[in-house]
């Protein structure tokens, strides 16, 4: 192992990062490969692909992901900001290009050059917002105005795609960061009542939103044919698995679950490995999120604190929404389970986000923090 006496960059990195967080993330990645092995073969067969097509591709994606993770976790906060700015600009450009030239898949224009640029936008967005709020608290308005302006700039292209899941995720993280940055309660109440009011208005006047909602609450009331097949099948998986599951590869419900390898991988986990394994998975996510937030709360650098909190919220909200949808606690949203669901862009972007997280959570001497925040804000 590395000695504490050694002063190399690697040793410095090893002793300053949060190793428990690293271990939990590693466990998630291993879970992800195992579960993709369980969930993806039926999907691959349905599509006429080789049985382990998705498993191989996922394993292949892990190589660049791990590289991205380590590279980004070595960055200093200052370099994190710069990297995020570059990623943000590039992925925004790609999103706009996808909107104009991309092919339409399932009614949305999200893909260009085989990647989904909105995935990369998310961690970069969080870093930029954290930066803006940190500056805002220091110099009053300009930073705050920037933080306010970034939200519409980011979500308008997402709405145009349309990708309501990502829009919701980005907006929720933005609100969360705003709250953490020290927003006055009057605004907390104001913004949340605007949000609730907006939802009520949408429910009352936008038939599509109302139909979605009604379909979720009571499929019978909307009349006609209701498609609750996916969610019913997912629930059925949990019952089929019981406490301890049917055993790896023994699942049958997964064969008819359309998005078994992506959005509904949690349900496949339930069928093959049981509710106990699902609880363990929930435990790992909860551990990462709560431990991360508690550590972050003690971080003295305002930018690092906000950035870490934002990245953890991004990760946590995404995982919670995915699991809640699988358990029919929420209406269906296209959202993947971080590190578990299949998806190349998704796993690389998560690696980038977690790399940033490890980087901003590194322990640093207090003098360095003070020096940084006084001298060079960028």
């Amino acid at each position: 192992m590395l000695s504490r006496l050694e002063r190399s960059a690697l040793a410095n990195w090893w002793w300053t990062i949060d190793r428990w967080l690293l271990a939990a993330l590693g466990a998630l990645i291993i879970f992800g490969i195992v579960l993709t092995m369980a969930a993806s073969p039926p999907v691959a067969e349905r599509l006429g692909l080789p049985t382990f097509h998705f498993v191989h591709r996922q394993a292949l994606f892990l190589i660049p992901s791990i590289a991205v993770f380590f590279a980004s976790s070595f960055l200093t906060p200052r370099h994190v900001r710069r990297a995020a700015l570059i990623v943000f600009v590039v992925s925004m450009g790609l999103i706009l290009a996808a909107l104009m030239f991309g092919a339409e898949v399932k009614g949305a224009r999200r893909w260009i050059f085989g990647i989904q640029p909105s995935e990369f936008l998310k961690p970069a967005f969080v870093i930029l917002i954290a930066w803006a709020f940190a500056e805002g608290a220091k110099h009053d308005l300009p930073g705050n105005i920037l933080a306010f302006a970034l939200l519409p700039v980011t979500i308008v292209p997402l709405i145009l795609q349309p990708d309501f899941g990502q829009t919701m995720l980005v907006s929720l993280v933005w609100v969360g960061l705003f709250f953490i940055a020290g927003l006055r309660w009057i605004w907390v109440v104001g913004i949340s009542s605007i949000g609730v009011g907006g939802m009520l208005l949408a429910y009352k006047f936008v038939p599509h939103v109302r139909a979605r909602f009604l379909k979720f609450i009571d499929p019978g009331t909307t009349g006609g044919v209701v498609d609750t097949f996916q969610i019913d099948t997912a629930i059925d998986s949990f019952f089929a698995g019981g406490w301890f599951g049917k055993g790896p590869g023994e699942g049958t419900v997964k064969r008819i679950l359309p998005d078994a390898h992506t959005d509904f991988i949690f349900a496949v986990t339930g069928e093959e490995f049981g509710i106990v394994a699902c609880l363990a998975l929930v435990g790992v996510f909860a551990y990462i999120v709560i431990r991360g937030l508690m550590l972050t709360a003690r971080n003295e650098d305002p930018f690092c604190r906000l950035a870490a909190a934002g990245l953890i919220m991004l990760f946590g909200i995404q995982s919670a929404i995915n699991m809640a949808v699988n358990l029919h606690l929420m209406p269906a949203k296209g959202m993947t389970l971080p590190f578990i669901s299949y998806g190349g862009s998704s796993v690389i972007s998560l690696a980038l986000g977690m790399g940033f997280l490890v980087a901003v959570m590194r322990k640093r001497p207090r003098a360095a923090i003070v020096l940084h925040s006084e001298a060079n804000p960028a």
Partner: protein
Amino acid sequence: METEAPGQEEHAPDDAQHNVVLGRLLSLFTLKREKSTRRIRLVAFGFGLVYCVIAGKLIYFGLHPELRQAMQQSSSDTVAAARPDILDRNGVILATDVKVTSIFAEPRRIIDRDEAVDQLTSIFPDLDPRELEAKLGSHKGFVWVKRAVTPEQQRQVYHLGLPGIGFMQENKRVYPNGPIAAHVLGYANINGVGISGLEKYIDGEGLSDLQNAGFNLTTENLKPIVTSLDLNATYALRDELAKGVAKFKAKAGAAAILDVNTGEVIAMASLPDFDPNNPVDALDPDKINRMTVGVYEMGSTFKALSIAMALDAGKVTLNSKLDARESLRYGHFTIHDYHAQHRFLSVPEVFTYSSNIGTARMALMVGVEGHKAFLHKMGQLERLRTELPESAEPLVPKNWGELNTMTIAFGQGLNVAPLQAMMAVGALVNGGIMIHPTFLKRSEEEAHRDAPQVIKPETSESLRYLMRLNAEIGSARKADIDGYFVGGKTGTADKIIHGHYSNDKVLTTFMAIVPADKPKYLFFTMMDEPQGLPETSYYRTAAWNSGAVTGKIIARVGPMLGVTPRFTPPSEPFPLLAQAGYTAANLPPPGTH
């Protein structure tokens, strides 16, 4: 608190430079960074709660494995399960199961795939060789080759002696009458799952639960479903309607017969329809059940409701006179009469001349709230639910003002399903009892249980009188079949095309009661865009098409339903009106003799 000294220092002098007001204003926008530690912990607590809820639901699933059964509603078994027979009111079969043989393959056991494909396609030329080849080449354990084959085909396949090809007994749903009553029956798919109509209703009533529970059900041990339909009447009704639709070159048509005392639907047809034995195009939007799924402006047929409302509220009597001297103005709108008389009209005249002005005036006497309450009571503002799963919500104006009340009074601005309108007219003429329509056979006692009295018996008799009068001297003469003492009302609604009422596209409806002195059956016919013909002097109003078709239906169906013709009119058909002093009702109308 662990506050950040540098941040605070830069903050303070900045503020001091501003004046107090601006400073206060700005301070609203500043972020209190020192709060963030506490708030991050609050967020962590929130996440903890969310994960607890997720874990809680998982544990709940684990503790209640019995919920699974409740959740599974309709399973699509590979082998078509048995379904009960569906009978008409006289016991004639409308839908039944027959045993058929289906051919399946176990692709893993097939030795020579090309040979199997060759030989099977020579017996079944309609199988696509490429598709079959792909099926047999898959690694599945079981695939269907051909469902429901003939005994001869079965014998031929048997003699091929192909390994990996087998036979299985299945149930196939058969509808011996083809498209007759197709919309009521709906259909079941090849796996024996009800897809629409009564077939779907049967599944919802617990059939699929029994099958899931593993009961070995056969057609013999399932209780047949007895419907309210009369097969002969349904056939005649559909036949006359089809002739009418062809003659008047209408886009579509619908007709039904309702027993007004029991709420039973005796016959129903909606054209174009489909053959449930081969329901490939049953989901075509043009083939909806126009009686329950389509909503339409009922036109003047609705005037019966408005007049009943005014009579029942005591705002008018049959002797009242209404001012129809000139068109009725309301804001920018003017209400005209189609057969304008330019004088005061009595209530029976308003009905027989189908006066929009008179009806609108009567509705205004009752007022907007009273009108809404009445239509609500008559079931015109909510979705009508019957055994048929397909139904549609009426289109009710969002902001209902006086103008809406005036137009709805004569049948514009409120779209309802035709069966819904029939239910209301049935209540108007049967003595004032609101009876929910049904497609299952039931007795009068059952129907009257929980059936509310919605208008007074005297009002109901007035409406019967008005409809009879209209058949004698008004627009319903074409349906006045001798001996049946018919009463009726026409309705012609201009269709709305691109948001405007069209001049040349109409939807015509006709309601008739038989016999008018003591109604048993309510007949309804509707035609979508009938054309004017030379023999109708190019008129396309309801009397000429829907009315004439209704007349033919009554003449043909009357004997089947056992309505006794009376060739001397009843001596005192409307006794309550006579008691109330309105003797004119029981006299032969002027001009008929």
